């Protein structure tokens, strides 16, 4: 291991020519965190004994699921192997690795001049990585292609080097081969970063302009904002201004991460670090926004700022209605750290009080729901995720529908639904089954390219509604887990969409209403009605279950009335047992939701709303 460099330039006094800002683009499990760990060790910022696996991933869920949701930036001093006297500063910006966070990824990329494209030598590139690679190319980033896990017996470095070379436009020999696990090739990679990635260029004497690429809530310190300084300099204790809102804050602390927070005098051109202003809510420190000095600040913000826009909505309801205040509090807390999370109170006749929550996408939904359940101990019912529809009526009025039960009645002229451009990468043997799946999901083929001899990139336009349910699971199962998926919203289209209502004993159950394509409505109705018949226990009276479009019934089942509900015997004078049985049954009854006069067990809602095979344009996790 090389010696720790001695003359390390300090923040605010670092020559931009010595700075290299880079990120790592990689798929989940391709070893990004392990590589980052190795870099922390090699550059000496984390001592061996302090090292814990995947140092940079903070949250438990990230650690468990092996994914990074929130990025961070670490300042690494590195003296190149053949130029040891010349210590450089490498700022490694850890990008989120998932499709839902494309905007955050794009801001992280905008903070860099180059990127390490890290690909598993046994698996090849995946769709999300490819999408992020394209994003990096659009941002004119220098790309260093790297194959990881070359120590694995299943590694095929030649094959995948070829693939990467084709994508990046380099020679296969230029693809670095490393093992983040053993450390093999990591020093050479750091040298390549210094040699190939351009130094940042900015105007030193201009008013300060820094771009926020991440913003994290810390319960002790408030919001920690990560920035990349483009022009000028930010200094400690000055007042700063957020250019999108004009809000000003005092800079309580400014510094860099190595990897713990280290206060500094300031940050100069090209530098990456953190700011603390005492604000308590990440929505006051938005990713993509420009930070400038209050005094003699910049006039013009940096480009590229966007407000996060929720794409997928789901109703979240506490299983136990009395947990509603806790759910509100938990959402409030999560929002402190998640500017993309939006919610408003909603009342469902079937599920009681809850919230309609908007998410960037499916992973975002999954992560939030899991955090609510795990960190806040809440038991939740989540309604089937749906997209946002725009409904034009014949009388010229327009409705925005985020909840299927609000789909307007009356004469509708057009319904618009969001569409995405989906990219699927898979071994070519699965082309047939992938196309079949996309076809049944109303997909339109955009094109197909071979990445290598036996791997293809297939592009489709798909309604977002068709992939928010079980599309990914289906894709995985049809390709034995080999396919990867990425998508980006591209706009909207008009479609023949209808609302299917489910009626229990004549009463509409709002939680089960769904908007589907008219060709899928019948199948959805039949399946849901059959499923409910199984799940709802027999009642004192006969209960018809119907699926209907407007007033037209498209499917019907009947739950027969219960005829016997009595224990024949008295258990030999053990009345205590009988009373306890009654108490238990009463508890069970409490867990029932009354829908009109029908008792529906919570389990029925959960099963219908979360089960994978339950519905056509249907339902399900992921």
């Amino acid at each position: 291991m090389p010696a720790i460099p001695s003359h390390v330039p300090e923040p605010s006094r670092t020559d931009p020519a010595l700075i290299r800002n880079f990120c790592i683009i990689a798929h989940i499990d391709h070893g990004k965190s392990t590589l980052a760990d190795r870099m922390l060790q090699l550059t000496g910022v984390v001592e061996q004994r302090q090292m814990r696996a995947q140092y940079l991933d903070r949250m438990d869920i990230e650690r468990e699921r092996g994914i990074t949701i929130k990025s961070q930036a670490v300042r690494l001093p590195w003296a190149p192997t053949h130029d040891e006297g010349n210590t450089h500063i490498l700022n490694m910006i850890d990008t989120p690795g998932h499709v839902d966070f494309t905007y955050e990824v794009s801001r992280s990329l905008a903070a860099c001049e180059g990127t390490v494209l890290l690909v598993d030598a046994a698996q090849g590139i995946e769709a999300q990585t490819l999408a992020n690679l394209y994003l990096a190319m659009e941002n004119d980033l220098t790309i260093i292609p790297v194959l990881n896990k070359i120590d694995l017996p299943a590694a095929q470095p030649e094959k995948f080097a070829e693939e990467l070379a084709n994508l990046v436009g380099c020679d296969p020999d230029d693809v670095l081969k490393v093992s983040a696990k053993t450390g093999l090739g990591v020093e050479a990679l750091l040298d390549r970063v210094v040699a190939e990635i351009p130094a940042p260029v900015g105007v030193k004497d201009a008013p300060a302009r820094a771009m926020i690429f991440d913003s994290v809530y810390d319960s002790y310190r408030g919001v920690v904002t990560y920035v990349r300084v483009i022009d000028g300099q930010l200094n400690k204790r000055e007042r700063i201004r957020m250019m999108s809102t004009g809000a000003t804050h005092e800079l309580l602390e400014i510094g860099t991460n190595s990897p713990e927070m280290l206060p500094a005098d300031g940050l100069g051109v090209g530098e990456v670090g953190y700011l603390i202003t005492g604000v308590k809510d990440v929505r006051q420190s938005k990713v993509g926004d420009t930070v400038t000095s209050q005094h003699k600040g910049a006039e013009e913000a940096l480009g590229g700022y966007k407000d996060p826009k929720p794409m997928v909505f789901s109703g979240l309801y506490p299983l136990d209605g009395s947990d509603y205040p806790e759910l509100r509090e938990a959402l409030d807390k999560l929002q402190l750290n998640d500017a993309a999370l939006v919610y408003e109170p909603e009342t469902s006749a079937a599920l009681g009080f809850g919230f309609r929550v908007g998410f960037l996408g499916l992973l975002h939904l999954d992560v939030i729901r899991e955090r609510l359940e795990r960190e806040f101990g809440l038991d939740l019912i989540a309604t089937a995720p749906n997209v946002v529809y725009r409904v034009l009526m014949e009388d010229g009025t327009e409705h925005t529908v985020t909840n299927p039960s609000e789909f307007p009645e009356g004469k509708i002229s057009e319904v618009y639904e969001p569409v995405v451009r989906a990219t699927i990468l898979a071994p070519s043997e699965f082309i047939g089954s992938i196309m079949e799946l996309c076809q049944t999901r109303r997909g339109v083929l955009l094109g197909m390219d071979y990445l290598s001899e036996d791997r293809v990139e297939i592009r489709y336009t798909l309604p977002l509604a068709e992939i928010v349910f079980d599309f990914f699971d289906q894709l995985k199962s049809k390709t034995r887990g080999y396919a990867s998926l990425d998508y980006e919203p591209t706009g909207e289209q008009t479609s023949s969409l209808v609302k299917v209502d489910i009626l229990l004993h004549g009463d509409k159950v709002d939680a089960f209403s769904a908007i589907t394509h008219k060709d899928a409505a019948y199948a959805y109705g039949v399946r849901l009605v059959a499923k409910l018949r199984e799940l709802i226990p027999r009642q004192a009276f006969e209960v018809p279950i119907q699926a209907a479009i407007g007033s037209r019934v498209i499917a019907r089942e009947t739950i027969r009335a219960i005829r016997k509900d009595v224990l024949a015997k008295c258990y030999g004078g053990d009345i205590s047992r009988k009373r306890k049985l009654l108490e238990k049954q009463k508890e069970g009854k409490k867990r029932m939701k009354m829908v009109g006069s029908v008792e529906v067990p919570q389990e029925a809602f959960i099963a219908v709303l979360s089960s994978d095979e339950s519905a056509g344009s249907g339902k399900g996790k992921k």
Partner: protein
Amino acid sequence: MEHMPSALPDGEPVPADGALPASALAGAADRPLGFYLHVPYCATRCGYCDFNTYTATELRGSGGVLASRDNYAETLVDEVRLARKVLGDDPREVRTVFVGGGTPTLLAADDLVRMLGAIREEFGLAADAEVTTEANPESVDPAYLEVLREGGFNRISFGMQSARQHVLKVLDRTHTPGRPERCVAEARAAGFDHVNLDLIYGTPGESDDDWRASLDAAIGAGPDHVSAYALIVEEGTRLARRIRRGEVPMTDDDVHADRYLITEEMLSAAGFDWYEVSNWATSEAGRCLHNELYWRGADWWGAGPGAHSHVGGVRWWNVKHPGAYAAALAEGRSPGAGREVLSEEDRRVERILLELRLSEGVPLSLLRAEGLAAAGRALTDGLLQRGPYEEGRAALTLRGRLLADAVVRDLVD
């Protein structure tokens, strides 16, 4: 048929001397007192049975105390004496005695008479006391019945279950069809005033016609009381395992409902009236008074391993194992394993739970506003009878009897 479940409830401990809180004895003189005597022995265990019963003839408790069939009556008499001490100067004579099991008739008839004698000595028997024993059709003969009758027993209950061989086989009952009916005649000849036949319906493989044949046979034998219970498949029994393995089919609840309707139809045509969900009698006098004590929240002392007692809002239960039971009594300790002192609300709920099962029903005055509203709905839904309702009582209709537990759940609100 007495049912002694295999698992005991949780509760607070019973004091070593078995003493009851003073509240339990307050106003005792106005309540009838009964005795239940449990005999925990069987020749073989039936596949559907989860009662506290043992097929070994000798069981040893801690300290080497031997509990055997032969000295069982002796041990049980010890508990009757303990009951006398615990109840102190309670002046009540005993109104009912019921010997259940297990198989009481596995003991010598003299043993049963001796146990009854202890109650007579310690408490005195009311002149019109009802004294019942359960009996296995296989294990009694005219001589045995005569000894019981002379010893003071005036009611006998035979475990007939079914008149069909294939049904008896699934239930592991060893008696031959026809034997229980002859037992009735023998009991009548011995001078028993009251005779009951226990029947079980809904056994896997039983058809509606099998069940009609069983009812016909029972009615033809001329008892003045019939108990008909739906077969409950209890967890942990051999029958439950056989059903799980698919060796015999599980009976559907709708089939149980059909059989119950057949029961009501045939028994009422034969002159029986229901007075409790699973019990029918030919007259007021034919009702099992002891059974009614349970449903009416009266006092009874349950003696024997695993037996349950209730006195004035205190319920307690004995240790289950005959060895542990005998050991406790040998040391002069109460064999009580646990007890609970009921709150006012517990007692209200229990009254609704228990009395609703009786043909007289439960006073509407016991219900709170929500329960009253539920009763109104139950009336409209045809689950409660209009006549009694208008006189301030919730009494079940035939359909209501089949849904009694559901009605209770609403009425206790």
